[in-house]
Structures are given as structure tokens and as C-alpha cells.
């Protein structure tokens, strides 16, 4: 496996939890963070689709990030949020467990993901950012949002 080359650039990350993972998304990709959890189940949808949401009159498909990363789905609790991102000009929601923080991540502490990170979900990470106390798995959004 070739190790992707990460440009050591500084960026702001939205930190959140998904299952036992601490994840980050580049702030620039985030349209909004929504607390509307009134998600309508869509039967026969791919298992990682949690359902659909009424985002101010627009239909928003919500991806269950836990499922996408190979974890068990969790029932809705009040800490959960829908992180709205864009994919090919269309908005898509990511259901995450809890928003943690927004940090400025400097490029020096950003590294390619180690091969063993998070098992199945490993392919969804573009980098690992080392904080003093924890490691942040930086999501490769395009991978995550692939069908």
C-alpha cells in the first residue's frame, strides 16, 4: 500500500466523536451543524444511510457515520448532531455522536494515517492529527461520501 502524501498545511478542524473515534473534518467543508434529529427512516436504503431530514424545506440525506466507519449504529441521543457537508454541489448530512471542539491544526503535527488505524474504517482517513492528549482521525470526506 502506498502511503498518501499529506501536505503539511495548517487548517481548522471540527472535532467530533463517532463511536470510540475522535474525528476531524476540515472546517471549510462544513456548511452547518444541525441539531434537528427528526430523521425519517428510509427502508431499503444502503445500511449507512440513516434516513432523510427536512433541512428548511430541502431534502437532506443523512449518513450514519458510525455505520460508514464500520461500527454499530447507535440510537438517537441529544448530543448527536448532523454535520451538513457538500458533495458534488448537493448537501449531505453526517450523523455524528457529539461535537467536541473546533481547533486550529498545524501541518507539522499532521501525519499520514498509520496502516492499522481503526480497522475497516481506515480507508476513510486522510491523516492523523496529533494533539497533546489524543489523536484525531481526519476524515477523507470524498471517501466517506462515496456511495
Amino acid at each position, binding site marked *: 500500500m502506498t502511503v498518501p502524501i499529506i501536505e503539511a498545511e495548517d487548517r481548522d478542524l471540527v472535532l467530533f466523536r463517532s463511536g470510540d473515534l475522535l474525528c476531524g473534518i476540515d472546517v471549510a467543508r462544513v456548511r452547518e451543524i444541525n441539531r434537528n434529529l427528526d430523521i425519517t427512516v*428510509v*427502508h431499503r436504503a444502503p445500511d449507512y*444511510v440513516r434516513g432523510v431530514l427536512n433541512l428548511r424545506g430541502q431534502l437532506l440525506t443523512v449518513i450514519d457515520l458510525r455505520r460508514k466507519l464500520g461500527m454499530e449504529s447507535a440510537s438517537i441521543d441529544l448530543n448527536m448532531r448532523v454535520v451538513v457537508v457538500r458533495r458534488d454541489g448537493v448537501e449531505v448530512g453526517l450523523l455524528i455522536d457529539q461535537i467536541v471542539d473546533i481547533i486550529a491544526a498545524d501541518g507539522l503535527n499532521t501525519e499520514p494515517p498509520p496502516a492499522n488505524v481503526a480497522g475497516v474504517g481506515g480507508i476513510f482517513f486522510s491523516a492523523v492529527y496529533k494533539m497533546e492528549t489524543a489523536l484525531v482521525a481526519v476524515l477523507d470526506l470524498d471517501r466517506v461520501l462515496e456511495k
Partner: protein
Amino acid sequence: MTDYDDNILQAFIEESQEHLDGIENDLLRIEAAGAEIDDDLVNEVFRAVHSIKGGSSFLGLENITELAHGMESVLNMVRNRQLVLDGTGTSVLLASADVLAGMLADTGSSDERDIAAELEALQAIPDGGSPAAQSPTPSPVAAKSVATPTIEPTPEPTASLPVSVDEAALDEALEMLDYLYLVEYGADEVDEGVLAGLEELGTVLSQVAQGASLFVLFATVADVDVVASLLELEEAQVRLLEPDQVWAASPVEAVDTLAQTPVLPVANGDDLGPEGMLAMDAAVGPAPEVMRFLNLTYDLLNKMDQAFEVLLRKPGDVDALANLFDAVHRIKIAVGEQGLTDLDRLLGAGEDVLNRLRAGGFGVEAATAEILLDMASLTGEVCAELESDSLPEERDITALVDQLLELAPESEPEQHRNGQADAMPPAKKTTVVKSPIVETSLRVHVRLLDRLMNLAGELVLTRNQLKQVVALGDGAAVERTTQRLDQVTTELQETVVSTRMQPVGSVFGKFRRIVRDIARDLNKDVELVLEGEEVELDKTIIEALSDPLTHLVRNALDHGIETPSVRYEQGKQPTATLLLRALHEAGQVIIEITDNGAGIDPENIRTKALSMGNYDTSQINSMGDRDLVRLIFHPGFSTVEEVTDISGRGVGMDVVLTNLTKLGGIVDIDSEVGRGTTVRVKLPLTLAIIPALLVGMGSERFAVPQVNLAELVRVPMWRREELVQELGNAQVLRLRGNLLPLISLRQVFSDEIVDEDHSGALNVLVLKAGDFRYGMIVDELLDSEEIVVKPLDDFLSACKIYAGATILGDGQVAMILDVIGISDIKDLEAMEGASAGIEEDIDDLDSDVQELLLVYNHPDEQLAVPVSLVSRIERIHCDQIQRTGTRASMQYLGGHLVLFSLEDAAAVSPRPETDYLYVLVFTVADHEVGLLVSELVDITSQAVDVSVEGFVQAGIMGSTTISGRTTLMVDLYDLVRRLEPTWIEEHNARYKAESERTILIVEDTAFFRNQLERFVVEAGYRALVVEDGAKALAELERRGDEIDLILTDIEMPEIDGLELARRVRVEPRFAHLPIIAVTSLGGEENERRGRDAGVDEYLIKINREQILQAIRRRLGTGSLAL
């Protein structure tokens, strides 16, 4: 570009596209008419092209202007009967129109496109085409004298007259993009007033000869006739000039020139173009127009030289480059007009190079300048030859053109190299290349906008009212206002939807061209017949319809229709007919493509299917002809051995089917060997907002489009075993002797067997998936609503079982079920065999059906009257109506029939004045009366009016959606009550019960409940109202002694009417109570079951008179009048 400019550009593009749409059909008609020129038609095309030219030149879109100009010139000849359009000429014009359309679709780069080939082809039309002289039409001169006799006596200042003006003034005029006119006065007509009049209109560039009668004028007015009428002159006295028809010279020179040149030196044929030019060789010295050309060109060549001088010193000088480009461009136009095609081509290439350099911000390198200079000197040589009165030598310019092309590698070399050969691109190519223009804006009639504006105003008013009455806490007023709000919203919605409606003719129209081109290519003789072009469809559907229809038409032409010789051998008319037809049917639009060609041979399909090996042999062998023919919609199926350009290799039909199904369409095919094929496509009117039934499964809600809903069936618990049967793993529903595949919504969502609740009644939706039907069990039937369809993104579209989603009133999302998708995924059609042959049998549907007569009072409003109330329908002439005071009546069956108009009482649009109208005769309060309506629309059985809610007002009992239209339900009783209150009072007084009697009304549908309650209360009874059987039993338990009669629905959840009757009968306290069942469950069998359960009277819904009579009969209060 500013927004303002953008808007203008956008408006221009749209308008031009509309013009072009029209042009295509018109051109074909002109061609068909041949020598019998329809002036109006030609003028129309001419005007269309002319306005494109005008607009584009205003916007500085030079290529478009130039090409439009080329087309205009040809059309002008046609108009002047100098030319008769034949197939070739039409093809060139059509191809040019295509190129125009292409450039319009991408105006940004339109000027980069090389249109030399098109221009050349256009210019070649008078040569290569059939000049009028060779055709059976009169010679040009004769034709001219016939067409415009008034011109004859006037001296003609033809376009070739050398008119010279002051150069600065001309430049200014050109910069302003004004039109140049040559205005001619009779010598005695010129006075000071004339000059003043001209100055008022524009600017006089020059008075051609001192004291003479010719003026050059430039003005922003675009039409000769307008200028003429403004100046109070004959049209013939005003000429439109092209800028280069005017000499840029000092007035003095002009006078000199005029002095040397006879005023009318040129023969008529002269403006035929190159031919005319060559004809001048015989004359002494170059013809004036050639002189004019030469002067212009020399002048421009000088300019080029100057620009080169600057550029050789400063290769990056932008101004010099611009001047160079301008000069080359203008020479090119002039050269083109002279018919010097080689030179034109050369200069075109040069122009390309310069344009690219300009666009890219590059400088002119020495090497480039060298080649361009070569080009300039070659041009100069040709000019010199022309001047010396000789024909230009044949030169090989290929090398130079190639050199230029190398400088501009991005350009398309074929266009240049093939020159003349490519001038007439094959029609097929152009039709294929034509890219679909996605419309981003829409033209809407001002009337519609006005209506929207009014409705918006209404909405605001109503909102304010609502605020007020809510603040006051007046419950009744709130209700009234809410109803008003509902009405306004519905109207607003309908109006908005109607702005999206477009006639299907906009798609059909383009088939004239496609069919013509393809038929030509295939050497087939096909007449295209279009019907129903005015039928309207949602614009999104119209847009998406184009491709599948094109495919079907191509298939018909390629595979279906035979060549004339084959047809002749088979004893058919050599000319085949292709019929494209659109029509309305039951709230949907049907589009039919019918050919009278060879048809599809089911045996061929069978052979093919067997040879493909994808199908089960026994299955294929057992298939009927119809099913075999339908196989062509399967992927990869083609029976045609030869792959043709026209319809490809048979990968299409499945795509056609998929695309049409996506639009909510249903495709059907009928074919008879030797007789032809018909493909029928059923389409919904609109996609954006659809009527749907909401159903519940647990806590979830789903929407089912009404178009897919055949009926609702409720299977009571005690009949489950009889009606629902197991066939292996599958369930089937027995419905009127047929077996329908049955599936539960839960089962749709899961591949495992779902453990279902096996007790209680079942709610079954009978769904239509194309030709085939199946039942779906849902937990609950909720409202029927108009829903706004939101498309799914591609995460979900793969689920196949959803047609979209909608957002409900409470903000929650509900998925819209895709009835066809579900049947596919669950393979329900495989079970269809058992259920074949189900016919719509309205009379004994096991569902809430009301038979309604649909009528128009005003054509904008659809009204419904229950058929059961109408005793007769008469068609009368308006003279038969007699008026006394405000009342109308007519002679009827020996007496007078009082006539009502709906608008007398109800707030509906008044009936338009028509010669003939219809009278619906009905009886209210023992009086026979007639209701006048303007038109009968249909009789329909409305299966799902379960939730006919909506506004109630005078004479109207509510609204519902029928065939996709909001329909007002006429309340005949209320109408009479309002117009003739005394009848009702007298009637009620006659029947008034001695003591007040109480009637228990049991009905689960709010609409019917309200109706029954009103009937009963208005007739003087007291009403107790409950929603279902269980509540009725509770009510009986509580206050049974007060109740005198039970009026109940049969179809109800939990305890239904029959069960209620049984339970009442077994209870000694109530055994004597009269029970009247009011239901839409007609039929002897149902009636018998009712009587068995203990029902005394069995009545059909909403027939007020019947219901009241039955009540009176049972309570013994109505005997005196019956």
C-alpha cells in the same frame, strides 16, 4: 458584464431561440409550397431572422449577425420571387439555423466559431439552387412587376448605387449600430420640411447630390416600412443599406462619382450576387459596386499596413491588433459579398488567427506577421486584377491557408479544407449535433402574472383577516377565514403550476424536421401528421420527453416504415404515415406514435429471444404475442440485423422505457404485422405537485400517488379468509372474481417473512403498475393531500422503491412509494397470470365510490354533481330560456322548469354566454329544478374522496381533486335553499316531526359525517354524531333511550356498520331501532348482507332526498306527502 446586460442578452437568446423554433417548421412549409410562395410565411421567417440579426448586432455578436444576414439575403430573394427554395436550399437554411441555434446556446464563444462554410453555402443557394428563371414561376422581372407593381414607375436606387458619405459620420453611425437608409424623394418633393422630418427620425449622413432627391439617413428604427410610414413615403422609396454599400468618401467625390455614373446603371439581376457581378464584365470598366468594393478594400488594406507597421515594432500593441482584426474582418465580409470564396476562406483563416491572438492576449510574432502580410498582399493582387477588369486568376491558396491554420491550431481544419464541399453539412449530422438547450427561464403570459399578483394580494388580505379574527377569538370567523385561506392557496398553487404548463407542440414541432431529414437519409417517403399539439404538460416533462420521443420516432422510421418500393409491392400507399398524437385521458396525457409500416413480428422476437439465450425457453414459448412484442423493451434486444446510424443497435428501447417511467409515464406497444405499430405513452400532467394518499405503517407515514391508486378495499376480519388466500409463499387478494398479488408494506421493506398481525380488518390499496395491478396492505389510511415532490439524491435513488419524498405539514419527511418499483423489486408481476383480465368495474367496487358528473360552469372551474341526484340532462338553446324578473325558467314536459345558475348563489365564475347549454334536472324539496351549466366534462367514479375536505361556501359542499384538477362539489340542496328558501321552509313544515326525534349518525369520514349531520339537522331532527361503531355502541349504552334511529356507514374501522347492526339487533333494548345504512357499497350481494345483519334501509351516499325519505318512512313522519 452587468446584470442589465446579462438580462438583455438572456432575453435576446430566448427570443431568438423562439424565433428559430418557428423558422424550422416555416422553412419546411415554404419548401413544400415550392413556387407558390406564401408571402406571409416567407415574411414571417424573414422577420424572425431579421430580428435575430438586429438583436445580435446590438449585442455585438458578430458571427450571429453575419450568419443571420446571410440567411436574410437568401430569404429576401425568396420574398422578391427571385428564388424558389428547393430541398438543397432549404437544407442550407436549416443547417444555418442550426448553427445559429448552436451559437445562441453559447453566445460567449459564438464569435470564435467559423461560419465561413455556412456563409458560402448560403451565397451559393442562388447559383446551385434553382433560380426562379429556371422554375415554372414567372421570370424575375415579370414576377417583380406582379408582386410590387408600384415600384415599376419609380426609378430604383438599387443597393449598388454608389452613395458616398462623410467617413467620420459613417463610422459614428456604425459605432452606434444604427441602420442605414437610403431615402428617395421625387425632385419636387424636397423642401425644408423634408429635411426636418428626416432629422427628427435620425441623422442625415449626406444628401447625395446637391439639390437632388437622395438622402442617406441613419436611424435606430429597424424596419423599412416603419421609416417609410414615418416619412409618409411609399415603402419603395426607402431602402435599407448595408454599411459597406456606402462609400466612405467626401461628399464632393460622391457628387463626382454620381456625375460619372448613370443613376440606374445596373440590371435587375444584379443583386443576385456573384453571378450578377460576373455579368458586369461585359460593361466598360468595373461595375460601380465592384468599384465600391475595391475602394473599400484598398482602404482597409491600407489600414492593415499601418497596423502591421506598429505591430512589427511593438508586437503586443493591443490597439493595432484590434485594428488589424477589424480590417481583415471587414475585407472578409466585402470579399464574401463579391463571391470571392477562396479569398473569403483565406481571410477567414486569418481572422481566426487574429481573433485567437486577441482573445489570448498574445502579441503578433514576426513569423505570424509574415504570413498575415502574405495574405494581405494576395488580397491586394486579387483586387488589382478585378480593377483591371479581368477575372481573378485561379490561385492555389491552400498552402497559405494551411500556414494560417497552423497558427491557430484549435480551429477545426476540416471546415476550411473542405470549403465548398462541406458547405452543406449533411442534415443528419446537424440534427445529431444539436445540443438540447436547457431553459433557465420561462415565458409567462401577462394574464397569468396578473392573476398571481391578485392571488398574492388576496393571500395577504386573508392573512391579515386571520390575524384579526384570531386576536378576537371568534371561532366561527376563524373557520371562515381558514376556508378562504384554503381556497386562495389552492388557486395560487394551481396558477403557479399552470405557469409551468407548456403545449406539447413545442416537442412535436421539431419532429417535422427530424422526420424529413431521416426520411431523406433513408430514402423513405413519410408524411408526418401531428395532432393535439395544444395539449399542455409540465415543462420539466416536456423537456425530458424530447429524447425518448425522438428515439421512438427514429425507430418507427428506421425499422417500422418500409421503403416506397417495398410498400408498393405490398399494395400499400408508397407514402407512409407517421402520426404523433397527444390527448387527455383521465387526468393524464397520452402520447401516441403510430406508423403504418411493417409492424413487429412476434415470431421474429421469439426467435431472437431464444437465440439470445437469456430467457427461459418454455417461458418464451408460452408467451402471447403482446408479451413477446413487449420484449423489445428488455435491455439489449434488437431484431434488426443491420446496425444503422439512425436508431443504433437496439440498446435504446429499454432506455426509452426507463426514461419515460422516470417521468411517471407508462409505455405500451401495439403492433400488427404488415399494418404498423403504435406506441402509447401515458404521462402525468405535472411532476412537481401531485395528489397523493398518505398511508401509515406503525408510526411512519408514506405517500402513494393517486395516479397509481385504483381503489381502496377494506377487508373486514370476518371476510379475510374468504378474500385473502395463500398461494405458496405469496398472498393473493380475491377481488370481484379476480386474484391480485397482495403484499404488505412491511413486506416491501424486508426480504424476510414478516410476522404480521393476523387479526382485524385489512386496509388494502389496489395499485396500478402499468397494465398490471396488485394489492398492498397498509396499517392505516390517512389523508389524501396534494404533495410537493422532492427528488432523491443518488444515495437513495438506488433503492428503487421510492419515487421521491415530500415534506408534510408537520415538517416531517414522508417517502413517496414507487408503485412500479415495488412491483419490480418484489417480482409481483410474475404472479400476474392469476389476475389477468381485471376490468374497471365501477358498479360494485368494494370501496368508497361516488359517481360524479363533472361539468363546467365557467371553463376554468371544474364542478362535480353526484350522478345519483340528477334525474335528467337536457341540452337546450339559450333562446329556450324565459326570464321573468330575476327568475329563469323553460318549458319542460308540459310545465315550467325553474332554472338556476350556479353563480346566483355560489361564489363561482359566471357562465360564459353560449348558444347551447345544458340543464341538469334534479328534485329538491319536492320541486323539480334545473341547473344551467355550460359544458359536460365527464362522468367519473371517484374512488378516494374519503377526505373531501376543503372550503365550504354557499352552494358548494367542498372541494376535491379529480383528474388532477381541483373540483368543487356542488351542493344542490344548499343552492335551492339559498335561492328559494320558502320551498325548503314549506317542505320542512310539512314534514316537521311532531316531537323532536334524535338520530345517531355513525360515519368515519369527516366529509360524509358533516353532510349527514347537516341533512338531518336541516330536516328538523336532532343529531348525535360519532366516528365509528365502537363509539356508537357506547353512545347507545349511555343514552339509548333518546335515540330514535341509527344512520350508519358500512365501511368503518374496527366495528363496521354490519357488525354494529348485528350487535344492536341482539340487544333487546334496541332491537326495534330502525337502522339505515348509508354507503357506497352498492350491489345486491352487499345489500343482502346488510339486511341479514339487520339493516332496514340500504342507501347510497349523498342522496339527501333519499336519505330523508327513508328516515321519514322509518320514523313514520313522512307519510302525508309520500
